[in-house]
């Protein structure tokens, strides 16, 4: 059952700990188990629900740009770029070539940081804290580059409506190239580790396997889909910004298991290094911005970009004012979440943390809780407990 819900009538909550009896413990995930096997799974999101789409209806386009950059602090640039591109489309404006190239440059740097972050988090979920420390230490190189380029380590705000606000000097280019050489070397080492470490492979090889057919039916996107052999990457299928000038290689694997998801992301890191070198070697001259009207004529536009986690979709309606009439954002994590529920069913409870980690979720709450329903009743676990359970099971 793909959406295998726990029907409300079968649920009763037994709160754990010193809580007020009337307070229901809200679970992010609700799993029904039979022994160790998950028989049904459903999700209740909302911990990070801020009301952004509505907020955009009472903010100017410029203000909304700053808000959209903070939909996700890990892939801030892709959201800023998406919103800039969609508003530029509505206004009938094209950012200058140098700006579009710099957008790609920052996007690929962001992809490296996001994938390295995920390698660390994924390793942590499996109990491999050494790999977490190494990958996050290496990630600091990317953070330094981004900070030198844009002024901030996180939420770099490179975009303005109509272009970018940071330029690449020859000195900056030198620094980036050196950094990228280092990162590529490190990525190749991680590739070896994830494919050869016996303990790691026990948690990843053959675990959480999703066939190509399933990936397509479930509408999975990004590296999660590409690990199952789905050759889909918006940078190639629908190139935006400067990607038409800097074509990419789509990285896929066929095994569709967790190991494949690690391999795809590490290989994408290496591919991002290549793209960055290409961009720097062929950076167009010219302006960084083009004039944008404050009021945007009536219309609709859609953009789809390849965020580190997969397809991000923006739909905007304008009405001739300086404020959008409707802004719709669909993040890749929402698209991939259904696959987590589907895959969990039939797997062991101990595999759930890694299955979730495999889609590289916006780990908005390190405080996710899981409500477990079994023949014996109900229980609520913290994510930490579930993670430990997984680590113990594979000892």
């Amino acid at each position, binding site marked *: 059952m793909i959406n295998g819900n726990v029907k409300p009538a079968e649920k009763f909550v037994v709160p754990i700990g010193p809580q007020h009896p009337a307070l229901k413990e809200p679970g992010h995930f609700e799993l029904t188990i039979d022994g160790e096997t998950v028989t049904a799974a459903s999700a209740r999101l909302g911990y990070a629900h801020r009301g952004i789409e509505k907020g955009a209806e009472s903010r100017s386009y410029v203000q909304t740009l700053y808000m959209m950059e903070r939909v996700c*602090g890990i892939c801030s640039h892709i959201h800023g770029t998406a919103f800039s591109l969609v508003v530029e489309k509505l206004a009938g404006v094209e950012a200058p070539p140098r700006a579009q190239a710099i957008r790609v440059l920052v996007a690929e740097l962001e992809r490296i940081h996001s994938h390295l972050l995920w390698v660390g988090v994924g390793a942590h979920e499996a109990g491999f804290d050494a790999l977490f420390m190494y990958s996050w230490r290496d990630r600091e190189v990317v953070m330094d580059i981004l900070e030198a380029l844009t002024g901030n380590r996180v939420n770099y705000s490179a975009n303005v409506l109509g272009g970018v606000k940071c330029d690449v000097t020859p000195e900056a280019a030198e620094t980036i190239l050196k950094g990228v050489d280092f990162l590529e070397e490190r990525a190749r080492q991680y590739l070896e580790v994830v494919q050869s470490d016996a303990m790691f492979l026990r948690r990843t090889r053959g675990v959480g396997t999703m066939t190509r057919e399933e990936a397509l039916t479930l509408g999975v996107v990004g590296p999660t889909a590409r690990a199952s052999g789905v050759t889909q990457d918006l940078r190639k299928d629908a190139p935006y910004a400067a990607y038409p000038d800097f074509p990419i290689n789509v990285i896929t694997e066929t095994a569709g298991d967790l190991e494949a998801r690690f391999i795809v992301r590490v290989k994408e890191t290496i591919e991002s290094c290549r793209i960055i070198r290409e961009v720097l070697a062929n950076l167009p001259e010219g302006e960084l911005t083009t004039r944008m009207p404050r009021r945007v004529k009536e219309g609709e536009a859609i953009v789809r970009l390849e965020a580190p986690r997969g397809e991000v979709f923006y739909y905007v309606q304008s009405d001739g004012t300086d404020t959008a009439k409707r802004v719709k954002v669909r993040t890749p994590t929402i698209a991939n979440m259904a696959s987590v529920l589907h895959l969990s069913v039939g797997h062991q409870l101990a595999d759930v943390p890694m299955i979730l980690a495999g889609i590289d979720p916006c780990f908005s709450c390190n405080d996710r809780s899981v409500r477990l329903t079994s023949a014996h009743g109900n229980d609520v676990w913290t994510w930490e407990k579930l993670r430990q359970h997984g680590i113990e099971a594979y000892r």
Partner: protein
Amino acid sequence: MAERPNSGPLQTIIDEITAWSRINSPWAVHFNAGSCNGCDIEILATLTPRYDVERFGIKLEGSPRHADVLVCTGPVTRQARERLVRIYEQMPEPKFVVAVGACALTGGVFQGCYGVCDGVDKVIPVDLYIPGCPPRPEAIIDGFVKLLTALKQAKEGQAA
């Protein structure tokens, strides 16, 4: 620094012994109240070798039941609010709350959105505010050091 009301002279002494003995190495619990993760990844970065916040004696703990300091990010979404309050209540006295990032201070760019409470101190008392969007790891550590210094001074003031 907010005063914490204690309930009885014996409790006061017990609290002091427990708390002040741990001031040199407080245990911190981290809670994300709807943050975009920007602040969270910088907080996590403080644990990594480059910043190594543990050399200042701060340890990130799992359970609120053992924590002295609650480190909170995010504008406090309505869904997270209950959980935040519950975690705060589970922490033993004396306890301190650190709000990290513009959202935790005022709601940040999300101020006024229907899903948020506009900051941590709208929900629980806050002792230290670390501004930034996000604050870099050095700024976060600097904030912690200020907190520890203030606590040490209060401890010395108490002993005097």
